[in-house]
């Protein structure tokens, strides 16, 4: 008789210590196979087949995040050409919701991981700093497609936000001081006190697809 395929006990460990069922991994695996058209790896082009994603203004950055080696393995850098299911799960794990039974240390680690993911999205040249230009790029992308918006307006929005970031991170700057860019530590400072965990997660519904017959 055919039996469930694809659930690796190893994959569950990527999500530990949270309760992610093997069923949810099954679902993700099926989704992976759908996107990869039954191949073992996914390339950037495979994300083109998702209609819902087309409308997202930061689509490019999201897809890029899947191939960003900084998100896949902690110490490496650069871009991967293709990712396998394990990599796919690794990226999805950045979006797992928090569970009630997490302690302080786990929560903190969790939060840092999510913020690091976000930081990498902004820091497109991988130099560990979000510069004014990089932030401008993000704003322009978010506002892309609006013909009424001039480039200047997008720039001024970006500049305003960067100034605010600078004031949080560095405090008062002298007239000759140049703000190089937001480092990860500064980034963390900006988010202190703001609850990002509930904004940055995707929660699975409880699924029971088989009737039990005893």
């Amino acid at each position, binding site marked *: 008789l055919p039996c469930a395929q694809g659930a690796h006990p190893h994959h569950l460990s990527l999500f530990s210590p949270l309760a992610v069922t093997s069923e949810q991994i099954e679902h*993700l695996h099926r989704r992976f196979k759908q996107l990869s058209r039954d191949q073992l790896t996914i390339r950037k082009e495979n994300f083109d087949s998702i209609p819902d994603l087309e409308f997202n203004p930061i689509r490019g950055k*999201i897809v890029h995040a899947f191939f960003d080696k900084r998100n896949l393995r902690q110490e490496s850098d650069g871009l991967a050409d293709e990712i396998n299911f394990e990599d796919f799960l690794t990226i999805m794990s950045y979006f797992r919701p928090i569970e009630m039974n997490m302690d302080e240390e786990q929560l903190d680690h969790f939060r840092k991981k999510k913020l690091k993911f976000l930081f990498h999205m902004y820091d497109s040249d991988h130099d560990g700093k979000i510069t004014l230009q990089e932030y401008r790029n993000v704003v322009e992308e978010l506002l892309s497609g609006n013909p009424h918006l001039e480039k200047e307006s997008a720039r001024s929005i970006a500049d305003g*936000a960067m100034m605010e970031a600078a004031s949080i991170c560095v405090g008062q700057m002298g007239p000759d001081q140049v703000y190089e860019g937001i480092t990860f530590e500064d980034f963390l400072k900006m988010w202190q006190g703001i609850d990002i965990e509930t904004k940055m997660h995707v929660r699975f519904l409880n699924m029971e697809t088989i009737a039990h017959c005893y």
Partner: protein
Amino acid sequence: GIIERHETPMEKEIARLHRADFEFSDIFYFCRKGFEAIVEDEVTQRFSSEELVSWNLLTRTNVNFHYISLRLTVVWGIGVIVRYCFLLPLRFILAAIGITAMIVGTTMVGQLPNSSMKNYLSEVVHLTCSRILVRALSGTIHYHNKENKPQKGGICVANHTSPIDAIILTNDGCYAMVGQVHGGLMGVIQRATVKACPHVWFERSEMKDRHLVTKRLREHVADKSKLPILIFPEGTCINNTSVMMFKKGSFEIGGTIYPVAIKYDPQFGDAFWNSSKYNIVSYLLRIMTSWAIVCNVWYLPPMVRKEGEDAVQFANRVKSAIARQGGLTELPWDGGLKRAKVKDTFKEEQQKNYSKMLVRNGSIG
């Protein structure tokens, strides 16, 4: 669906995050939306069969098939024997009888000169053969609101799930079919039936010319003595949990529209034809080895285009009525997305909406 989606509208989400004008946090919302789309998107979902809550002993409908218990396996095994060795041959014979009777019957009626007798006989032949074919699928159909049945000179539109939709409807009435000329057995049936009854079959080259198609259909509808046309405006098979975009072509012809909602009960057999996964023969084999095809058909009150309403709005109005009646969700998406990508113009339109919203909350004067 498999993930919990937050239904907060975009504006509210962004307003909540705002302290000052534009923030680093705006990226969260789109980031999450993007991930949700990657895990599960509304559109691709509709092109795979509906998942059942409890198993109906057909392994094809249970994607997560595990071995559970010996007793269940034995029951399933008996089910397989009944379906393949008993039901399938019976149904096959019935279907063969039905198709042969259709071809022979309509050819014979086609020999008669045009008269009311011919029309009457043609109806008898079509109805009888249709009923045989429905029995061949072990179809149990409940028709509701028969007083709204489509009249002559009108256009009947329905949601599309499978090629047998047409048989389901012709079981209860006579329609003029619209479609492309095929080869093979289908072509033989088409050529035979058009002799008895004015179905509208188009050559492949003619289908490309929209004006020609509309013109021919208009001529047919204008003749009030002709049978109502049957059209499926979605253009492709959807999995019967939702209704997708109705192509406006059918609604530009004019005349009275008679909407019909068809909802299959997936408990006894999955009627959805996933044409990218199965060809027509394996699809028919699956249908004939299911337990039964059970469905509900609702005839909705006729609709006409209102003053100042364009074809697209009219199409959406009809679509909503059908979705409401059948208990299906409504999606604005085009069924053609099964095979093609989203059109750039549509995409740009949506992006404009996003940025308009962001700018309104931003510092632009």
